[in-house]
């Protein structure tokens, strides 16, 4: 499974965006994480606040694009992907 990461610009993030991605990567050792290019199975848009100002319109995920803007949602990404994967099977 390939997971693409696209960050917002980070002008005033309300949580540690890179820390959240590091936690996710360590919780999903079977997945490959890389900067989003638009061909990944999942693309995670990691925003620092509810403004979600990053432009990700050119990024299309193979399975799903997930947008998060707080640490609670970021902590749920793994579960969200696993549910999606189970449904696929």
């Amino acid at each position, binding site marked *: 499974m390939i997971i693409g*990461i*696209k*960050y*917002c*610009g*980070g*002008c*005033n993030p309300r949580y540690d*965006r*890179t820390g959240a991605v590091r936690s996710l990567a360590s919780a999903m050792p079977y997945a490959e994480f890389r*900067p989003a290019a638009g061909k990944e199975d999942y693309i995670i848009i*990691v925003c620092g606040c509810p403004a979600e*100002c*990053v*432009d990700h319109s050119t990024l299309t995920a193979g399975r799903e694009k997930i947008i998060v803007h707080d640490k609670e949602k970021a902590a749920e990404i793994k579960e969200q992907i696993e549910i999606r994967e189970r449904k696929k099977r």
Partner: protein
Amino acid sequence: MALMTGAEYIESIRNLNLQIYMFGRKIDDPTEDPILRPSLNSVRATYDLALMPEYEDLMTVTSSVTGKKINRFTHIHQSTDDLIKKVKMQRLCGQKTAACFQRCVGMDAFNAVYSTTYEIDRKYGTSYHENFLKFLEYSQENDLTVDGAMTDPKGDRNLAPSRQADPDLYLRVVERRPDGIVVRGAKAHQTGICNSHEVLVMPTIAMGPDDKDYAVSFTVPTNAENLFMVIGRQSCDTRKTEGSALDVGNCEFGGVEALVIFDNVFVPNDRIFLNGETEFAGMLVERFAGYHRQSYGGCKVGVGDVLIGASALAAEYNGAAKASHIKDKLIEMTHLNETLYSSGIACSAEGSKTESGNYIIDLLLANVCKQNVTRFPYEIARLAQDIAGGLMVTAPSEKDLKDPKIGPYIEKYLAGTAEVSTETRLKVLRLIENITLGTAAVGYLTESMHGAGSPQAQRIMISRQGNLEQKKNLAKAIAKIDK
């Protein structure tokens, strides 16, 4: 090369061999000078951040000229979204450096010159816009840092440029040749000049028909023949020569200013953007000032974020964090800081398209933004000093702290809470000192007062743009006044 690395940027500045004077001598290698290097590092941050995935969405953008990925600091704003992202980028850079990162002035000059040259060409059939587009593409392709130089020394403020006792007190054309012009004069308070590849010169005030030689805008490389810089002194500047990371408060980043002398500098024709069209000097000044007043709603907010954080840490380190008055002061600081940000965002969101196609901020709101910036950082700094306590200015030096005999006494008697070392406590106090009355106070306070125009300049613009007649009519309608 659309994006330079920070290391490549440093080398590119080193290779310029700039003519920089400080303390009565020429600096051999400005990039290694302990007083100048932190200032260079602040600009380097704008290159480093652009290459980090977690910041690239703000720091980079697709060029409207070449379609390539470029650093936003060389961009021509294509939408209100671009204007908003500019302010967000500046806040980010302020947070990462706690200093002036110097590159905004060139971006603001780019956007002002872009639209003004377009309108001059339409009226006079000149080729200034084409000249500027060539320079713009060159800057974007090589990821250059460009200093926007506006402020002339101005001599007697009561006299027009052409009426000054010394005609060089405003930068002027002293010779016109078939291949270009020769200029003489100076630009003061140039924060980024010693870290820039090029300088983009603009007039400093609106001008009349007698000031034709003073209505001039152009670019030259910062290592042009007969161009040199004299670095200004800052409070506590020589602390940087003492080798103590603790005592300087911010050992990595800073900002310095210079007086730039143009002692008969040649400018080739294709680098000229205004040359005698006096009625456009005011337009260029107003647009540049508007963009730059917007900028302060981002950069100073970022530095404010650091100062608020430092104040909160200082309170934690001495056990006062739970006191209600400390919490309230931190709330007030945040309120003031976010108010600055609000007006920076507002003047961007209310921006509009110019005849040339780029976007300009709402001038009224940009001037309101900068007017707030002339006040709020001072109050934020006052509250930071209040929270920090007197030790911020009475603490002994790092040498004393590390001294085998004296050090243990300092450790013992200047301790705060048991969980935090005395050294850690002193580090955060020195940072507050640095921002509120040390070298960084030049950028955070006095630059907030006078940069992009002193407070009265904004009040004049607010008066012009305030639409008082419409407000009177509103009052009349409510009060049922017929005439």
